[in-house]
């Protein structure tokens, strides 16, 4: 209880400002300063939100999107770790791939969507692939950076103790790189979440992006807004869950505890 109290005191502004904004918005709507067809009042949006939750529509679409993110991210992150470890440790591999990756990496994930639709249609495949591509790069980069910045002093200790390559990798290099990799994973999921919405906005028959596009065609601005805001909220939620997981897994990481 004490904790919550002190948290409130410190972060009071974080709550006060949105409440203030919402009240001004609500008042402006009531007074007819804003056209409801363009921007409905917060209370009207909240009502639609409740309806969409009650009908289950919102969570079904969100659930589908989250499932896609989960699948695509697992594939992308797995490949990212696999290739990242090789790139970080094998110089030949790094050189062989440097040009190809240099060209491919800066391509925004969204640019792949038309290509993938042509190749794979608008089914699950193309969406999951988009997510996989997006998370692949972020995880790859963090794995390479994490491994290459492992303190040489840690490696020397293992060398002196005559550890083999496998022990060196699994007991020293990967654990040391884990905080950096975890940061990459968090950014990667963020990217994945953004790209799934983008992919669904362009072509889909389900998912939160589809719900937004469909409502737009029916000019249901309130549903569109509920959809857009729920994307943001889900993003925050996922990030917080990952932070929690990170604190669990990286108990030893003192830098984490201090922040």
């Amino acid at each position: 209880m004490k904790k919550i109290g002190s948290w409130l005191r410190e972060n009071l502004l974080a709550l006060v400002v949105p409440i203030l904004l919402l009240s001004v918005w609500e008042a402006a709507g009531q007074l007819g300063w804003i056209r409801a067809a363009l921007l409905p009042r917060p209370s009207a949006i909240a009502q639609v939100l409740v309806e969409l939750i009650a009908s289950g529509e919102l969570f079904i679409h969100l659930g589908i999107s989250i499932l896609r993110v989960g699948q695509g991210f697992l594939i992308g992150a797995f490949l990212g770790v696999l290739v990242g470890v090789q790139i970080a440790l094998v110089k030949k591999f790094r050189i062989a791939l440097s040009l190809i990756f240099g060209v491919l990496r800066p391509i925004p994930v969204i640019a792949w969507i038309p290509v993938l639709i042509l190749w794979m249609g608008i089914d699950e495949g193309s969406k999951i692939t988009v997510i996989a591509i997006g998370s692949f790069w972020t995880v790859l980069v963090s794995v390479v950076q994490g491994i290459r910045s492992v303190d040489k002093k840690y490696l020397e200790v293992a060398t002196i103790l005559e550890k083999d390559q496998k022990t060196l990798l699994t007991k020293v290099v990967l654990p040391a790189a884990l905080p950096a990799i975890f940061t990459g994973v968090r950014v990667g999921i963020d990217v994945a979440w953004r790209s799934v919405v983008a992919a669904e906005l362009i072509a889909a028959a389900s998912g939160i992006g589809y719900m937004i596009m469909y409502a737009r065609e029916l000019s249901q601005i309130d549903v569109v807004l509920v959809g857009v805001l729920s994307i943001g909220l889900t993003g925050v939620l996922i990030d917080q869950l990952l932070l929690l997981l990170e604190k669990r897994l990286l108990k030893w990481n003192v830098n984490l505890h201090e922040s």
Partner: protein
Amino acid sequence: MSMIAASPQTLTIKGLSKRFQIDNDFVEVLNDIDLEVTPGEFVSIIGPSGCGKSTLLRMVAGLEQEYQGEIYLGDELIKGPRVNRGMVFQEARLYPWLTIENNVAFGLGHHHSAEEKKRIVAEHLELVGLSSFAKAYPHQLSGGMQQRVSIARALVNRPQVLLLDEPFGALDAMTRISMQQEIIRIWEAEKTTILLVTHDIDEAIFLGDRVVVMSKRPATAKAVIPIDLPRPRDRNSYEFVQVRKTIYSNFFSEVEVPFSYSI
């Protein structure tokens, strides 16, 4: 019990010279070092900073490989790292993601059963007086405690030679003195050969059977001074002070004369 047949071995350093290449320049670091360390002997090495003391230990450990001269442990020519030589660095270099007991266990090879591993780790934590911290993480320990864990990790393989590179340099004066007593106790219990680098002349005398004084770069072994004082040693005894004077004059005969030193 231990995997290394523990017949004591002499450490022999013969005509050792080392230079580093920095861009196109060569920096001569060690110049023709000869030293023979008998089994179970405690040798302290002092010298001006940057003269190559760490480099010398790293060569004995097998971490540096391009040099002139030879290093033998018994009949074995040293070509790279082996667990018969343990090393402790100035920083404890514990793995922050492992508990204290797992850090110590990391020192052990594969060829131990789980129970054996547990027993050896427990024994060594006992040896350095940290049994109750087995489950703690390194960041929960003080600098001196971390360094004791590092010593335990270096000892689990029962090395013939223990290399200590300014292991107490980062500790405060009080902790340092208690660590010096600790290391003597461990040395007497384990009977390993110890090579200790330090920048603290008192520490060198307090601990060593002999003190090697190195010159500035390129370093030679300028003087090797036997310390024939009974243990435990008294830092304020007349003999101790005499030895300190000898080493001071040796140490500073070439290095800049200090503004003042009063003993």
